[in-house]
């Protein structure tokens, strides 16, 4: 270890204050890692100059994989030779981000041996991020990881690492087994995860209920969100208990219901389940008294992405309800059709959501063999620019 002192007056300011400090973390790693030490130096330079000092990517990786590593090079390697290369490995997290202390230590040991000793727990897609190492260390890191039972996640134009909310492991509202589905999908598509062959990235996130604790509707090309079909389970005694404990049920529940489908007569709560849109609010407020129904499954929504290029998209409903038992098979079937169409018609760097908007939902449905249902739209079209298919229709008549 070089014990030359780097002065970081600007970054030092970020060790002050009550919130845990990332600077402290880098310094901590710097005690044992020259890479972390040079990262600190380069970061201080960025803080001085108000500009980043990383060069544009570069293709590096482990043998046989096209994804899982983000290449990164310093644009001031002469000053900070230990971060001349500073590639990141994306390690596929266990579903739900559960660990044993043993597993954590194993990861730390591998990374201390081969990299900067810095991580993100976790990246925005959900991976364990091993933050920064040299090209030569990639393969050894990978080898030790797989020996320890870990594998890389996605990057580039592949299926990205799927993730899941804590679901049935600790949440009473999970309408399907998010951890199992996430795991099964990850295993089913190891090839798609490791060998980029798509027009662009494809993300999958599993949320157990409409609260969507993994932000799937905003951040996943395929958002799998738990939902129920029958009536909300209601325990009137528990309702009374909440009220007795001071809940203003009229103001905080009934009047906040988006469909106003509840009534409270001072004693009894009545839900018109036919009008309920399963928004979760009333359940969220009174978890002991109200629970999702018993006929459970998931909604499949497609297309979310960040703004680049055509503007941000939220996923939209494709299949309003799939019973839990059929979920894995339906997702597989759907993915094979969607991917086939996307592979053939998707333009370079066109996400599925953009493709749908470009070709039109109806054409997309045709292509993947799904019938249109009104649940797919918030409302039917309001412009009269209809591409009528007259021949078909006339033959129908």
């Amino acid at each position: 270890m070089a014990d030359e002192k780097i002065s970081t007056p600007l970054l030092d300011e970020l060790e002050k204050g009550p919130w845990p400090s990332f600077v402290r973390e880098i310094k901590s790693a710097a005690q044992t890692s020259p890479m972390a030490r040079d990262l600190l130096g380069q970061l201080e330079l960025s803080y001085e100059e108000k500009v980043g000092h990383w060069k544009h990517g570069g293709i590096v990786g482990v043998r046989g994989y096209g994804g899982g590593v983000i290449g990164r090079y310093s644009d001031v390697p002469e000053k900070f030779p230990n971060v001349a290369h500073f590639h990141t490995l994306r390690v596929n997290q266990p579903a739900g981000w559960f660990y044993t202390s043993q597993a954590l230590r194993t990861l730390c040991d591998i990374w201390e041996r081969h990299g900067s000793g810095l991580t993100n727990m976790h990246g925005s897609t959900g991976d364990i991020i091993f933050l920064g190492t040299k090209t030569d260390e990639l393969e050894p890191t990978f080898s030790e990881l797989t020996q320890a039972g870990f594998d890389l996640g996605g990057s580039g134009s592949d299926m990205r690492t799927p993730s899941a909310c804590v679901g049935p492991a600790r949440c009473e509202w999970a309408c399907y087994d998010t951890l199992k589905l996430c795991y099964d999908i990850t295993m089913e598509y190891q090839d798609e995860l490791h060998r980029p062959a798509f027009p662009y990235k494809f993300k999958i996130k599993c949320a157990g209920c409409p609260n969507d604790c993994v932000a799937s509707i905003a951040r996943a090309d395929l958002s799998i969100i738990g939902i129920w079909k029958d009536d909300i389970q209601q325990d009137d005694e528990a309702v009374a208990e909440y009220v007795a404990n001071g809940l203003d049920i009229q103001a905080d529940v009934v009047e906040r219901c988006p469909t106003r489908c509840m009534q409270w007569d001072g004693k009894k709560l009545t839900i018109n389940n036919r009008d309920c849109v399963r928004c979760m609010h009333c359940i969220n407020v009174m978890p002991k008294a109200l629970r999702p129904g018993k006929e459970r499954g998931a909604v499949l929504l497609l297309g979310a992405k960040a703004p680049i290029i055509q503007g941000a998209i939220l996923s939209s409903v494709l299949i309003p309800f799939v019973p839990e038992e059929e979920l894995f098979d339906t997702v597989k079937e759907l993915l094979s059709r969607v991917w086939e169409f996307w592979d053939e018609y998707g333009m370079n760097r066109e996400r599925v959501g953009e493709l749908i908007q470009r070709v039109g939902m109806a054409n997309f449905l045709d292509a993947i063999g799904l019938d249109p249902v009104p649940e797919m739209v918030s409302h039917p079209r309001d412009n009269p620019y209809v591409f009528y298919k007259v021949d078909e229709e006339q033959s129908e008549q």
Partner: protein
Amino acid sequence: MATEATKRLTDIGPPHYEKFLPPIIKRNYGKWLYHERLAPGVMCHVAESGEKLYTVRAGSPRLLSVHTIRKIADLADKYCNGYVRFTSRNNIEFLLEDPSKIEDLKKDLQALGFPVGGTNNAISNVVHTQGWVHCHSAATDASGLVKSVMDALYERFTHEDLPAKLRLAVACCLNMCGAVHCSDIAILGVHRRPPRILHDLLPKVCEIPTVVASCPTGAIRARTVDGKQTVEVIEQQCMYCGNCYTVCPAMPLNNPQTDGVSIWVGGKVSNARSKPRFSKLAIPYLPNNPPRWPEVVEAVVKIVDVYAKHARKYERMGEWIDRIGWPRFFELTGIPFTRYHIDDFKHAGLTYNRSTHLKF
């Protein structure tokens, strides 16, 4: 490496999650009945079996050194039979069977500098990105912004006294790695000048048609400079999205003078009450002022304070603004409304006020 070629493992996938589930969870998997909030950062989930699981949530900087992770592992051993999890917002959750250990755990966490909180109607951890720490695209640093803002909002993490959940996010460029676009408050790094074109480099590393096609506004044209096939950018058509740079390293946008930060409000992800929605522009530009970005901190704290004061219970930021209207949001926060707030991208017309619904 070569010596073990035959044994090289690939495509094994992540470890099976069951290996990492504490026994109490395995016993009650999918059979949780309800939960109760015990204190900020502490909740109790009750199973059909009657068993109770106590969760203690602690904030983390997300960027963790292996040394710190080992300390977390130690705490997991001491209090939770070695089990621990992370949340979708990068908090650490300790899962206890014995409620009597909670206070000790909290003390140990405090000692390590990890705040306990982030549950219920608190501000939770900030979803964020790489910034100057690891990304070439960054218009600002992410971790530094988070640290600066959360220092100022610390009490909002350790107390559950907001009207509803409030989700903050930081992204260092328009690629928006994270749910920035659907956050109650989003801090977004922005470039504000067109890319510089490295005419010497460009022909070597970029495909001109790909570069031309990458621009959402069609601002890029093929051009010959000093006999080299390269491109030019029509400056008035450029809105600094950086997509050209993503496909072509010879078109960097970084600019220490003009890069900075914008602030967005009112987005959400959950379907609770109202539908998921995008965040909307609140402040078009604040300067990059490291190490502590005082202008950004001040602006965010102000927005949080105004929201905390005026919103009704269970009103997320966007739902509150729905009720009071945007004119009043700008009035209450003192943020000026400018030309930049009016959309001029594809669906702009749909954001105009096509009604006489007005408040005076």
